[in-house]
């Protein structure tokens, strides 16, 4: 048990820090840094800089433009990059979830065509799983793919697709056989988002922004060679994506215990007993989650696969984000409801995150589903009563 860097790790940290200092500003040092305009260009440029300097995708093999580094180096990189204003948002889903799925199930031709470009920040990916009647129950999706010669013809609708409006490619989960039980009739594809028949309509979010979308497919043709995994094996492929999703989205962006502590100190609330107790709770849970990730990384570095334990991350961080923002607003009293970046402490970061937090508790698996996963897959408790498991999909109820 040793939490200090080994000499090699310390050397890597130093190198990473020097690189970051050269290219980025420390977090929160500049008001403009939280400006959303030109976010995409900034993110692309930063991704390219990282890739050219072998700091993009630390653990990916060198042949695909990664660093070929260790899991610990990846952790160290994450820790250091998070101290800076790094515009990574638009790449989180593609590089965290979609492209790893392509690497796991794609052909050599796919890897050659897509991986490097994504890594260099030239192409952005989105994940097309959820549908109007299939969110938590992703396997209940209805978008159809019908074989026609060497192509598949896709018709249907996806929803909540983050970043679809600026994505070049997506991984698309569809139903290829409605006559078998729902998990058995799914297949995964790579889809070109810019081709005819793909229509992206931004959705206005509760937070006021428009970052996710509805995506309509009308007679969209996908060549069979762009299939990921076997026909009917889409659920197995999706599980790999979802496992990576839980790893990727574990740490919610937004103010944490340290930020509200600083705020409370500046505004004289740090001596308040009730606040101190909450602060202690937040710290303990955040620290617990951080250390759990270390344990996961240790397992990874020993060649083991991360288990569903990672589900605790999103439950903790998303709920705490909501709770911390709520407390910060209450600490400011009536002043706390003002939502103007130039008038508010910390650029109204608590107010903005307050409106994002509900989404984080839903995206990437809701609290309730994640708790089910822990109960069933980690603790081995009996599965929920499942009325839909063995019935052919087209006989199921939905709504």
């Amino acid at each position, binding site marked *: 048990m040793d939490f200090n860097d080994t000499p090699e790790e310390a050397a890597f940290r130093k190198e990473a820090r020097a690189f970051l200092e050269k290219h980025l500003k420390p977090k929160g040092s500049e008001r403009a840094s939280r400006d959303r305009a030109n976010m995409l260009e900034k993110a692309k440029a930063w991704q390219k800089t990282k890739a050219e300097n072998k700091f993009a995708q630390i653990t990916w093999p060198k042949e695909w433009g990664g660093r070929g580094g260790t899991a610990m180096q990846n952790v160290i990189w994450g820790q250091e990059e998070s101290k800076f204003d790094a515009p990574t948002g638009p790449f989180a889903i593609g590089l965290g979830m979609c492209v790893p799925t392509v690497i796991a199930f794609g052909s050599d031709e796919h890897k050659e065509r897509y991986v490097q470009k994504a890594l260099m920040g030239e192409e952005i990916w989105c994940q097309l799983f*959820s549908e109007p*009647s*299939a*969110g*938590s*129950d992703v396997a*209940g999706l209805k978008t159809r793919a019908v074989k026609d010669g060497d192509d598949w013809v896709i018709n249907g609708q996806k*929803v*909540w697709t983050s970043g679809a409006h600026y994505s070049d490619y997506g991984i698309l989960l569809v139903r290829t056989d409605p006559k078998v039980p729902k998990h058995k009739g799914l297949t995964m594809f790579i889809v070109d988002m810019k081709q005819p028949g793909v229509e992206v309509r931004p*959705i*206005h*979010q*509760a*937070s*006021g922004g428009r970052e996710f979308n509805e995506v309509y497919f009308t007679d969209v043709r996908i060549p069979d060679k762009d299939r990921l995994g076997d026909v009917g094996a889409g659920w197995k492929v999706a599980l790999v994506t979802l496992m990576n999703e839980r790893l990727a989205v574990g740490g919610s962006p937004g103010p944490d215990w340290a930020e509200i502590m600083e705020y409370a100190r500046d*505004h*004289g*609330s740090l001596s*308040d007993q*009730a606040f101190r107790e909450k602060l202690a709770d937040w710290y303990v849970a955040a620290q617990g989650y951080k250390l759990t990730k270390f344990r996961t990384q240790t397992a990874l570095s020993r060649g083991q696969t991360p288990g569903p334990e990672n589900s605790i991350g999103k439950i903790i961080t998303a709920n705490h984000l*909501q709770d911390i923002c*709520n407390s910060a*607003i*209450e*600490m*400011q*009293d*009536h*002043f*706390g*409801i*003002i*939502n*103007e970046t130039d*008038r508010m*402490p910390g650029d109204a970061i608590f*107010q903005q995150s*307050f*409106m994002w937090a*509900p*989404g984080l*508790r*839903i*995206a990437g698996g*809701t*609290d*309730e589903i994640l*708790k*089910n996963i822990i109960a069933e897959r980690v603790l081995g408790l009996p599965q*929920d009563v*499942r*009325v*839909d498991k063995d*019935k052919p999909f087209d006989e*199921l*109820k*939905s*709504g």
Partner: protein
Amino acid sequence: MNFDFSEDQKYLAGEARKFLEAESAIPVVREVLNDDDKAYSEGLWKKIAEMGWLGTAVPEEQGGLGLGMLEMCVLAEEMGRVLAPVPFSSTAYFLTEAVKLAGSDEVKNDILPRVVAGEIIGCYAASEGPGHPDPANLKTTFDGSTVSGTKIPVTDGGIATHAVVLAKEGSGASLVLVDLSGAGVTRKTLSTLDPTRGHAELTFDKTPGVRLGAAGDGASLNDQLMDKVAVLLAFEQLGGASRALEMAKEYALERYAFGRPIAGNQAIKHKLAEMYVKNEVARSNCFYGAWALSTDAPEMPEAAAAARVAASEAFWFASKENIQTHGGMGFTWEVDCHLYYRRAKLLAVQAGGPKVWKEKLVRALEQKNAA
């Protein structure tokens, strides 16, 4: 023992609900939400004035209906349910109660009939920056005839005709009534978490004002005013929380996942049950607060604080878990969940956040204990 509203009051509630559901359906709220230049629904406001609601608790001598505070509580709950986008609380709770509490006969006779007639829109201006305004450390001053200083944020400050201002006078504080058409008033619109209620920054530069009550009585008057307002706001919160639970229930019964309604899942059932428990705890505390308010009971401080604490918690919980129950739909602009989430936060921090009221509650209990 009859710990409930009377038949007449329930009838009023039913009529108010019918009226508000017809006149203040969500599209009316959304008109205000979607138009940055709109701080309230003028149409609804006019109709509310015509119904005489602004005079509910105004004495008949001043043109009011002379009903009581219980009737105001009934209306407040209904306004809260539909998120009515009108300056009702600012006018009928903050301004009217301040004038009733501490205005001279002359002020009462001048202001209250105009409130009833719908000619006056009120606002309450206490906050000056982050944290709860402390009467001892106010920067806004009153020199006996004029007010100077900046108040931010002021709910309905952009549309109000009159403000009740908490200001420093000498070594104490005073409550001052300010006609906003007077000299030296500047208003700046603010964007806030709840765009369905207008907010502004108000700056006074030697603006004429009339003291409510005696010089230096401001802190204690303000406390009394806040107790009254707290109960009424708690009823609005209760209305919002009840509606949020209903929305969650309706959706949970309609929405299918894994082949059955999501309402069948224990996680969702527990969530809704917890909303219900918190709502009922709030309702009972609100009733007690209403009783204290309507009888001027000595228990008022703890009753008001308990109502406020319970209702803030209930609305916060119901509004956030209502979004959660709606899943991705709940996180869209088109679905109404976020309107309740936004309003829950506004009502919780307006007139003192939960921390302030918890402290008031414990202090009241301590005093009782010592007596």
